[in-house]
């Protein structure tokens, strides 16, 4: 039996590792996607004061600490049964919207986008942000840096720091913003809307205008018919910060909509002995293994999932793009994983519009940003949409508000089973009779890069080319061929 090891694909929690086993005929028999690290947050957060959770759980991920900061703050609000004043909620969501713009921009231009803008067959050396700059024009590099700077500036103004924000506490925030800061934030938000529109135009011209690329998106290699999850507001529109969790089935119809506090009635996590990460699934559908379809509890939580799970976008420009998206791809739901990239840009536009909406609300500069908790703390759940999926924090405390138990279901974790399936399907489709070439590398990479998995450099890197090595071994484990892909 032959064996292909892809190691490291790097990580956030350790180096992700893919093992592909081939049979005597050189066809794929099975694939394993392993996550080799565990840090133990659910244990060592026990004993800590609950108001520190937004600071401690930040350190789960330095790429999306804003998501953990928000989920933790909301869980801590719930522990104290305290209602955050309107201004407090808006400030948190404003920070979060700006963060989304930065995050989605980095992924599109540095990571996922180059596959399309340069084309999946482009030389490896060109399939990165530098290649994008050469093709689209030099000014785009400056715009991408500007978008990242603006996003981080808002995070710092409201959250106090660029990485690991520190101002959200049970009941609201430690500070508000001044009129001067509000003006600056509004100015940056208006620029962000233009940037998002420009980005959609780039996608339209280069990707949708090219039949080969469009065929790749709608093709079967990257298609799985699963359930889809996302937070929605009271009108069933996409929301990143607040709302109910809505799940639609492979047929696009609502399967369930639940309050964050009820998540454990709907989600369970499957365990395998060969990895440190668990596989969440829909409890009431059941775990049927790494398969799709209405009888399998596997669900996806990504930008595409959020669009599938909602009835639309809450802002006008993004809503127009939402309609165009489904008209182009043949209605709801869209099952093709590569469409996640397009969905991400629609979310970028929504986040920018929401940023300006919040920054121009007359109450955003109000000093009423914190309500002092008065109830006895007990238990609470906080859910936000992290860019990479629905993020759940659940805390139990004693009567002093000291944490006694923690449960976390982290963004990317939701997608562990679907990513595993996508890797297997891509490998199955592309490796035949032991033939492996560089095209395979990128096609397998594209299978999981669409999810923007937070397992590692897949998420945020410069210049954006994921390092990948495939070793093909013979039956004795001796390498017979090594294929590499470098960054420039």
């Amino acid at each position, binding site marked *: 039996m032959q064996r292909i090891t892809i190691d490291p694909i790097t990580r956030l929690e350790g180096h992700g590792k893919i093992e592909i086993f081939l049979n005597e005929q050189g066809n794929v028999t099975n694939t394993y996607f392993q996550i080799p690290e565990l*840090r133990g947050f659910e244990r060592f957060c026990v004993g800590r004061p609950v108001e520190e959770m937004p600071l401690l759980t930040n350190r789960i991920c330095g790429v999306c600490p804003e998501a953990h900061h928000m989920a933790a703050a909301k869980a801590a609000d719930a522990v104290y049964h305290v209602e955050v004043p309107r201004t407090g909620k808006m400030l948190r969501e404003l920070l979060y919207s700006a963060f989304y713009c930065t995050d989605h921009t980095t992924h599109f231009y540095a990571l996922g986008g180059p596959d399309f803008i340069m084309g999946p067959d482009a030389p490896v050396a060109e399939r990165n942000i530098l290649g994008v700059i050469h093709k689209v024009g030099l000014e785009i590099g400056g715009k991408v840096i500007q978008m990242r700077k603006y996003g981080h500036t808002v995070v710092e103004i409201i959250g106090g720091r660029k990485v690991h924000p520190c101002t959200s506490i049970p009941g609201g925030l430690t500070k508000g913003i001044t009129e001067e800061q509000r003006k600056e934030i509004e100015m940056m938000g208006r620029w962000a809307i233009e940037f998002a529109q420009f980005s959609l135009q780039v996608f339209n011209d280069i990707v949708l205008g090219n039949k080969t690329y469009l065929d790749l998106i709608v093709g079967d290699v990257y298609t799985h018919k699963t359930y889809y999850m996302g937070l929605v507001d009271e009108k069933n529109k996409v929301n990143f910060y607040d709302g109910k969790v809505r799940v639609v089935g492979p047929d696009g119809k609502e399967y369930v909509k639940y309050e964050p506090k009820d998540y454990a009635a709907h989600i369970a996590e499957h365990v395998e002995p060969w990895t440190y990460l668990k596989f969440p699934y829909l409890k009431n559908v059941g775990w049927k293994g790494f398969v799709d379809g209405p009888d399998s509890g596997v669900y996806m939580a990504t930008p595409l999932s959020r669009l599938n799970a909602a009835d639309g976008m809450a802002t006008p420009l993004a809503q127009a793009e939402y309609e165009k998206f489904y008209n182009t791809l043949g209605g709801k739901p869209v099952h093709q994983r590569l469409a996640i990239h397009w969905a991400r840009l629609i979310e970028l536009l929504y986040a920018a519009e929401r940023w300006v909406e919040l920054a121009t609300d007359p109450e955003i500069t109000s000093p009423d940003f914190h309500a002092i908790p008065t109830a006895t703390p007990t238990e609470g759940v906080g859910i936000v949409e992290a860019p990479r999926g629905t993020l759940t924090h659940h805390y139990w405390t004693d009567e002093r508000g000291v944490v006694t138990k923690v449960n976390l279901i982290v963004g990317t974790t939701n997608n562990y089973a679907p990513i595993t399936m996508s890797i297997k399907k891509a490998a199955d489709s592309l490796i035949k009779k032991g033939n492996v070439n560089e095209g395979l590398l990128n096609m397998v990479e594209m299978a999981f890069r669409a999810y923007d998995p937070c397992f590692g450099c897949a998420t945020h890197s410069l210049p954006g080319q994921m390092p990948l090595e495939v070793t093909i071994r013979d039956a004795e484990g001796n390498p017979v061929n090594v294929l590499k892909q470098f960054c420039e």
Partner: protein
Amino acid sequence: MSKPKFAMYWAASCGGCEIAVLNIHEKILDVDANFDVVFWPVAMDAKYKDVEAMEDGSILLTLFNGGIRNDENEHIAHLLRKKSKILVAFGSCACEGCIPGLANFSSITELVDTAFSTITTDNPENIRPQSSYAMPEGIITIPTLNPVLKTLGQVVDVDYYMPGCPPESHQIAAVIDLVIQVLQGKAELPPKGTTIGAGNSTVCDECKRTRNVKTIKEFRRIQFTHTDPELCLLEQGIPCNGVATRSGCDARCPTVGAQCIGCYGPAEGVVDYGARLISAFASVIDSNKPEEIDKILDGLVDPAGQFYRFNLAGSLLRSSKSAQKG
């Protein structure tokens, strides 16, 4: 002439150190102009074999972030030590263990048991991850967790320490400037063992809040307080760690009304951060009556976390007994 070689590596970390480096924006081009980046998993092809093939000492500068959580982290730490002239413990995790170091209050059995028995975990057979597992197709492996999380300096010889969670970008830019000046013969490296990219005083010294008479009658928790935006947080009863914490961050958290949680580590000359902070807190308590003092101290609901939040792994304590037993 070939450029000096640069490497950056992440062990058990969150990725925030890498983001902090990216946040130096255009300065990153100076790194590119002055160095040949030979190993940086976040930004380029990460092959251990390439590093193994390099001559010992051939990398001029390696920034190493993350703590040592498993055997793979430890292996890479030894490898990069051997290949690097200058090895910098970069960020709180590598310097002193950071938040993941709080795991040292528990054994790894407790850490793994907790993660695999949460209310949503479906685990009727009580499975635990195995470092080596035989599947029908063959054996697949994952690294083994170490009993306790170690700092980089507890595993290999470290040349410089750069604190912060993460290090502030302006400090990173300043250190890069310094190294470039050294390369050009315009400056000299500081003595081995120096803490770089930080100040030599405390966060309190950098903080712009007003300090009057620093005495308190009670510790107050931030969620129960509308703090005065101008006055010292500790004077308002908020357990702010600025007094024991090294300067270098511009007192970022206290400036926005959040207490310093100590991410820049012990101030210069402080042997044990927790001991220093305990004495600092004790000195502000405005009481001579034992019962009243006890009551005031009860306001600190998590002394272990308060005093060893970022530095447990690097402290004199290092870990609890249960963690040492595994």
